[in-house]
Structure formats: C-alpha cells, structure tokens
C-alpha cells in the first residue's frame, strides 16, 4: 500500500512537471492523456464486461462536435460561424472562450451519456461479434451522417474557436495539457473506484457467463447500460478536449474516425492487457510512442506499419503486456502459487 502511494505521488508530480520538462511535446502529452482516457474507458466494457465495442468513437465524436458547437453557439450564431469556415469574423474574448469551454465540456460529457443510455437497451442486447459489428456500423454511420449536416460544417469541416491571446504563446499548450491531465486523473480515480466495488464483479460475471449471471438474479441489462454510460461519459469528455486541441473537426477524419481512433482504443487496451487497471494505461503509452515513431520515421508508410502492428499484436500478443507479466511473475499480482498444490496438479496430468 505504501509503495502504491509513492508511485501515485511520483506519477502526479511527473504529470505536473512534464510540460515544463518537455516543452516541445506538450501536444503529444495531451494526446497521450486523451488516449489513456479512451483506452481505460473502453476497457470497462471491452475488458471487464466482455462487450467488444468499436462504437465508443460515437461518443467521442459526439462530444467533440457538442463541445465546439456549444462553445461557438453560446456567443455567436453557429450557422454563420461554420459558413465562414472559421474565418476570424467572430473572435472569442478569453472569458468567453473559457466559459464556453467549461459549459461545452459539461454538455459533451452529459449528452453522450444520455445517448448511451437511450440506445443501450437496443444495442447491448446483441452479443459477441454482432455487438462488435453493430457498433462499428453505428460509428461509421454517425460519421457519414454528420458529414451531411450543414450547420456543423458538413463536408468542409468545423473550425473550433482559436485559443484567445492571454499573454504567452505557451499558454495554449499548457491549458490543454492540464485540462486533459485533470480528465485523466478523474478517469483514473473513477475507474479505480469502480474496480473496487461489487459493480466490477457483476461486470466480470457478465463477461464470464451472462446467462448464469442472469440466472443468479443479476439484472444484467441494467449493469451493462450503466457500464456503457460510464464509458460514454469519459469518451465525450475526451472528445471535447481533443476537438479544442486539434482545432479543426472533420466528420470522418477527426471526429467519428472509426478506422483510426475507434480501432486504436481497442488496440491499446489489448496491447496493455484487457481487464486490468494498469494495462490500458501502459498499452496507450507504448502504442502512442510506437505510433509517433511510425509517423516520424516511416512517413508515408505509417498506415502500412500500423496495419502490420495491429495484426502482430492481435495474433501474437492477445494477452497484452499485463497478461505476459502476470504469467511471468504471478506473485506480484497477489496470486499465491502453492508449490505443493502445483506439483500435485502436474502429477495428476
């Protein structure tokens, strides 16, 4: 317990100091925070509940559009903003920008949660690969449809409000870094809290055998929907931040990017180890380093490298980093290996 406390404080101090130690990587670090949030929340239903979703991108994109729309719409007419293509016809004052961002983030978190609750009953009745394909369809459909809606920029995209001039040039990067870092801490605390409750055990029961869980008197549907809503809440929040960070929202390439972000979050969780607390975090970090490496060293070939990476991870490394560690050092994971019992087992075989 004492070791853990030191670890957490160390990570916290590192997180706060990171933008000052590596000032050139602020944007990368903020993206890393968002990725960790996405993979950790995917893990709630992908890893713990056993419902492999490609559709969390729906909430992410929804949050992105909602945050930006609210931020603009609170002060200026939205249609004119998108029509001018983000030209500087309207300028947010700093207080307008931050107010808009705050309200926008709240909306971006709450609305996807409600959407998840509403569609949850229909979608979560599907199981296994039908659920996976259905959510994949949902994500892509959302991207295609939002690409046809005029008020949020249709095909030409939506420029989010530019960061206001508040003194130094560094403030934009720092603002978004700390925003995403706070969301990351919130997510971590929430997920860690959830994983200590009965709720997590119920999710695991659903993963292991849903019929039996139901027979034991658990209202599986209720818990499945709650699990999905928790994911949606944080995905929306992450999307809202990412929209401001990127500064430009395109329906299929940035917001509802099911082919990239939608698969990345699954991949990060699998790379780190499904169904563990630290797995998705480690996975996201490793994956982000890999990805940025590809983008720097294989420029042009990055997607080819990425495709190969996906295949290799999925085929040769389905247990992930945590799973591998667990197999290697079971004692560290609190699994007591009784030598006598193990020998007896071996003899039995």
């Amino acid at each position, binding site marked *: 317990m004492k070791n853990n406390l030191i670890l957490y404080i160390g990570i916290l101090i590192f997180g706060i100091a990171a933008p000052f130690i590596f000032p050139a990587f602020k944007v990368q670090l903020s993206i890393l925070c968002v990725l960790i949030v996405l993979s950790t929340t995917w893990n709630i239903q992908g890893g713990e509940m056993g419902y*492999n979703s490609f559709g969390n991108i729906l909430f992410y994109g929804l949050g992105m559009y909602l945050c930006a729309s609210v931020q603009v719409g609170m002060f200026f007419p939205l249609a004119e903003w998108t029509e001018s293509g983000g030209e500087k016809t309207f300028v947010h004052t700093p207080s307008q920008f931050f107010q808009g961002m705050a309200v926008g983030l709240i909306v971006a978190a709450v609305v996807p949660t409600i959407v998840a609750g509403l569609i949850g009953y*229909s*979608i979560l*009745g*599907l*199981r*296994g*690969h*039908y659920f*996976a*394909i*259905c959510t*994949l*369809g*949902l994500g*892509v*459909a959302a*991207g*295609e*449809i939002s*690409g*046809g809606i005029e008020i949020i920029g*249709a*095909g030409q995209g939506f420029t989010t409000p530019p960061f206001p001039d508040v003194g130094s040039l560094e403030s934009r990067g720092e603002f978004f870094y700390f925003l995403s870092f706070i969301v990351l801490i919130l997510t971590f605390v929430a997920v860690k809290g959830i994983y200590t409750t009965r709720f997590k055990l119920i999710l695991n029961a659903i993963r292991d055998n849903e019929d039996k869980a139901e027979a034991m008197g658990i209202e599986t549907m209720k818990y499945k929907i709650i699990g999905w809503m928790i994911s949606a809440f944080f995905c929306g929040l992450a999307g809202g931040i990412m929209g401001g960070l990127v500064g430009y929202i395109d329906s299929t390439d940035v917001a509802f990017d099911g*082919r990239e972000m939608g*698969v990345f979050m*699954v*991949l990060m969780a*699998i790379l780190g180890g499904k169904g563990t607390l630290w797995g998705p975090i480690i996975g996201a970090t490793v994956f982000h380093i890999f990805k940025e490496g590809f983008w720097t060293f294989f420029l*042009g*070939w990055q*997607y*080819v490298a*990425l*495709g*190969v*990476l*996906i*295949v290799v991870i*999925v*085929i040769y490394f*389905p247990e992930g980093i945590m799973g591998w560690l667990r197999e290697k050092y079971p004692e560290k994971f609190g699994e007591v290996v009784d030598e006598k019992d193990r020998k007896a087992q071996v003899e039995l075989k």
Partner: protein
Amino acid sequence: MISVQACLDGILLGILFALIAYGMALQWGVMNIINIAQGDLVILGGYIAYFMYLYGIHPAWGVIVSPIIMYFVGIAIYKLVINKVVDRDLFISILATFGISILFMQLMNFAFGADVVLANSGYGTTMLFDNNVVLPNSKIFSAFISILFAICLVIYMKKSKLGRAIRATAQNARAAKILGVDTEKVYAATFGINAALCGVAGALISITFTIHPYMGLPYTIRSFMIVIVAGLGNLPGVAMSGMGLGIFEEFADYILGTEFRIGSVFLLLVLILVYRRFKLSRKREYLK
C-alpha cells in the same frame, strides 16, 4: 419512371453484392471468421481489371484474370495471418482482418493513387420504356457474369471432391478431420475461393462503377448485412437480400441524396441487428 430505374439499378447492383456476400458466408460458415478485409479484396480485384484496361486489354478479361490472381493473394493471406486466428475468438479475427484492411488500403493508395478510377468497357447503354429508363450494358453484363459465377460455384460445391470436403468441414471440422479431410488445406482453399469471388466482383465493379482505395469497408458491411439477413448457407436468401439491399440503396440515393448513401447502409445494418435482437428477445434468445 424513376422508381423503375431505381429498382432495375438496384437489382443489378444487388446481384453483385450477393456475389461478395456469398464469399463472406462461405468463409464465415466454414472457418468461423468474419473478414473485415473483404471489401478491400474486392477493390484490389477491381484494380487488377483497371490495370489491364490501362495497358490496352479489354477490362472484361479481368473477370477471368482477376480471380486467378486473387486466389493466390487469398492463399497468401491465409498462410500469413488467417490460419492463426481460425480457432480463436471471432473478435480476434475481426481485429486481425481490420489490420489487414488498413494495410491493403494504404498499399493500394501507394500503388494506384488516391483517385477515383473507372475501367471504361465501351459497352454503351440500353434504353427501355420509350427511353425513360437507361441501363448501361456494363451493368447487365456484370449481373450476368455474377450469376454465371455463382451457378458455377454452387455446382462445384455440390459435385467436386474439394466442394464436398469444404461442406463437410463446415458441418463439423473435427469429424471431417477424423475422416481424413485435410482441414488446413480446406481452409486455405475456402479463403482462396472467397478471394477469387471478391476478385470477380471487383473486376465487375471497376467496369460498372468506380473504385477507390478507401471504398472497401462499405462492401464489407453490405456483405455482412446480407449474410445476417439471409443466414449462412442459404443461397437463394443471399441473392434475394442482396437485391433488396441494392434497391434500398438506390432509393436512399434518390430520396436522401448521395451524401447519405453510405450512411444509410450502415444505419440499416444497425436497424436490422436491433430488429432481430428484439424479435429474438421475445423468446429470450439472442443472436449467436
């Protein structure tokens, strides 16, 4: 008259979809994998025909050349990736083939460029009903070829030794193995045949419509949709639901506009799955 046009277009298009879906049903039934890269195989087949067109050969010959090349591409993919995911969880196969799909998309983008291309067959058009309905002959040709290939395949599956082995493996892989069927070979052949079907469909698509490196995923989703509506191993059902999907798409195109066409396909998939889920949940069952 627009509705007649849309129906005829839809039926001719749907026959093509059914051909792709048949390949999907084949591998799903036999190997229990869902291939997200199906659409990308189709597009790759299309580019083979397009290249023949660029070098002055009539693209209709692509219908013969493309499946032969695609068969070996399919075998290669099987040997490299698919044989490691056959016995595993379906989700693993979805993710692995997703990786293949991204890989193919990008490789095609490098090799052929990101332009929308079309292999012009020069077949002209047919006018029906006092010139109110215009049907390009290439569409009629492609529907005819698709039906021809489907019939050949059905006969092959019924009569040949390999066809019987494939059907036996689909029914019970373990029993087939005991009775001396080399299931590994059967799986490889199945995936090869599926890729060859995709090659035919792709060559036909490059003649009748357009191809683009990133257009693969909608074809995968369409074939998945057709298979879940029709069920595995139900060939007339596959043909019917393929045509139905084609008609739906043409109407969605007319009514909602072209920008919502792909979106409506994906939304239809979600609606169909949700409908089936509610229908089954009345009997306390679920889609398996």
